[in-house]
């Protein structure tokens, strides 16, 4: 049986209390929201906190609230299922809600939270294995070892950004609120991540993500396309969030964010410049998708061949743009 290692479980009743205990225990502690990422990782010895701090007891972290600017603030412990069930969110951010609906399975989404989803660990076939498996092969840089098994010449870990909702939130220009020992700050979702599969988040380990702030959707229509092995359960092999503004049949503005093709989600909206002022057609889309997919660097550390995943990045970008334009 895969059992959890020993730890103590703390249940702070407020964000302030949680932030305080988290900074007190430092690297010996980790927060848990739904636990659907942390607990499997702990069972496999990929994470070994002695103290686990439950965020689920904090009311401040729950609830979806309309904001004055016409947007929404979503508490970090709102579950993915709650997001999927919200007609207001679906109307405003179809891409984001669709991304949440494509995470794993219904039962997992009933406990998995939006905050946990934004913080979800990067993935790699050499890392997401049991302790015994990794020990037998030899550990890697991300945990317990010192070289990368996928790209031995690489100075950094290339594990894959795997949050489905992160690219969709970025494509809407969303921000997150972080609370740490030195107070509170608000940062764009995009700047939460960096190009390193081991230290994939820029936030300090003792900062708690308290909410996601989605700005007013304005005239942005959005979509999310996920490529995976099975129609359920699996993480993205490629994920593409697109947002588009149309004037009649002409494109006014377009954003594209791709994920699962490197250690961080990538905003490749630059490439969509060619669409502005034009009608969407096959040739133009292919051009834009080819350009937008250039920074994608899939490696041999996920299911299916990386050459195929690179090719599918282009196809998924085309599909995401089309679907965003077709949103009613």
């Amino acid at each position, binding site marked *: *049986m*895969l*059992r*959890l*290692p*020993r*730890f*103590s*479980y*703390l*249940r702070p009743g407020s964000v302030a209390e949680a932030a305080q205990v988290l900074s007190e225990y430092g690297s010996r502690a980790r927060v*848990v929201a*739904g*636990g*659907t990422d942390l*607990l*499997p990782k702990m*069972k*496999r010895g990929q994470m070994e906190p*002695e*103290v*686990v701090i*439950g965020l*689920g007891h904090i009311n401040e972290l729950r609830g979806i609230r309309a904001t004055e600017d016409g947007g929404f603030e979503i508490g970090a412990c709102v579950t993915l*299922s709650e997001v999927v069930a919200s007609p207001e969110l679906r109307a405003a951010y179809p891409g984001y809600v669709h991304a949440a609906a494509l995470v*794993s*399975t*219904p*039962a*997992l989404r*009933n*406990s998995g939270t939006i905050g946990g989803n934004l913080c979800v660990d990067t993935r790699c076939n050499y890392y997401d294995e049991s302790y015994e498996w990794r020990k037998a092969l030899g550990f890697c840089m991300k945990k317990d070892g010192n070289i990368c098994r996928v790209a031995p010449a690489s100075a950094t870990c290339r594990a894959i950004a795997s949050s489905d909702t992160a690219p969709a939130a970025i494509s809407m220009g969303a921000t997150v609120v972080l609370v740490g020992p030195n107070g509170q700050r608000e940062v764009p979702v995009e700047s939460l991540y960096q190009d390193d599969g081991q230290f994939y988040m820029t936030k300090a380990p003792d900062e708690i993500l308290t909410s996601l702030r989605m700005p007013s959707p304005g005239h942005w229509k959005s979509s999310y396309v996920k490529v995976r092995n099975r*129609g*359920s*359960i699996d993480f993205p092999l490629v994920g593409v969030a697109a947002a588009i503004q149309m004037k009649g049949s002409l494109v006014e503005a377009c954003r594209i964010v791709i994920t699962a093709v490197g250690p961080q989600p990538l905003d490749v909206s630059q490439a969509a410049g060619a669409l502005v002022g034009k009608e969407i057609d096959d040739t133009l889309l292919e051009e834009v998708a080819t350009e937008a997919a250039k920074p994608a660097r899939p490696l041999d550390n996920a299911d299916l061949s990386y050459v195929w995943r690179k090719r599918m990045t282009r196809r998924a970008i085309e599909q995401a743009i089309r679907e965003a334009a077709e949103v009613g």
Partner: protein
Amino acid sequence: MGNIGSREILRLSVNGRQHELLVKPYATLLEVLREDLRLTGTKHGCEAGECGACVVLVDGTPQLSCLVLPGQIEGSEVTTIEGVSNGSELHPVQQAFMDHGALQCGYCTPGMVLSSKALLDSNPSPTRDEINEALSGNLCRCTGYVSIIEAVEDAGRAMA
């Protein structure tokens, strides 16, 4: 805080019965149900969130008991497969699974029945797509899914 991992008192309501247990904080809900409460109807499969064998209902919604810490759901009502029938009278979903032969080895069945019950409780006449979606996290390695889906449709009619 006591020693790392020292046992704690947990109050948990399971199948309508209130329990007060002394448990390890690092035991999952699955382990507490099977090992402390001896409710072995809930199955352990992958233990990593991938198969749905361990599904139980927490306040009526399916959750993966292999990835839930009991401390996280204190105060909630847990329903396991042992709590589904009314004495010796099977729940309509159980009856329909029998009638349709929707099981072979039966290992996935507790999770399948609970996911189906949760669906039908909120939506008594689901479409096939809705059934597929609701059961998309419950893997069966034996029967093929058609008989399971037909059983859920039948159970919905029986419950309506």
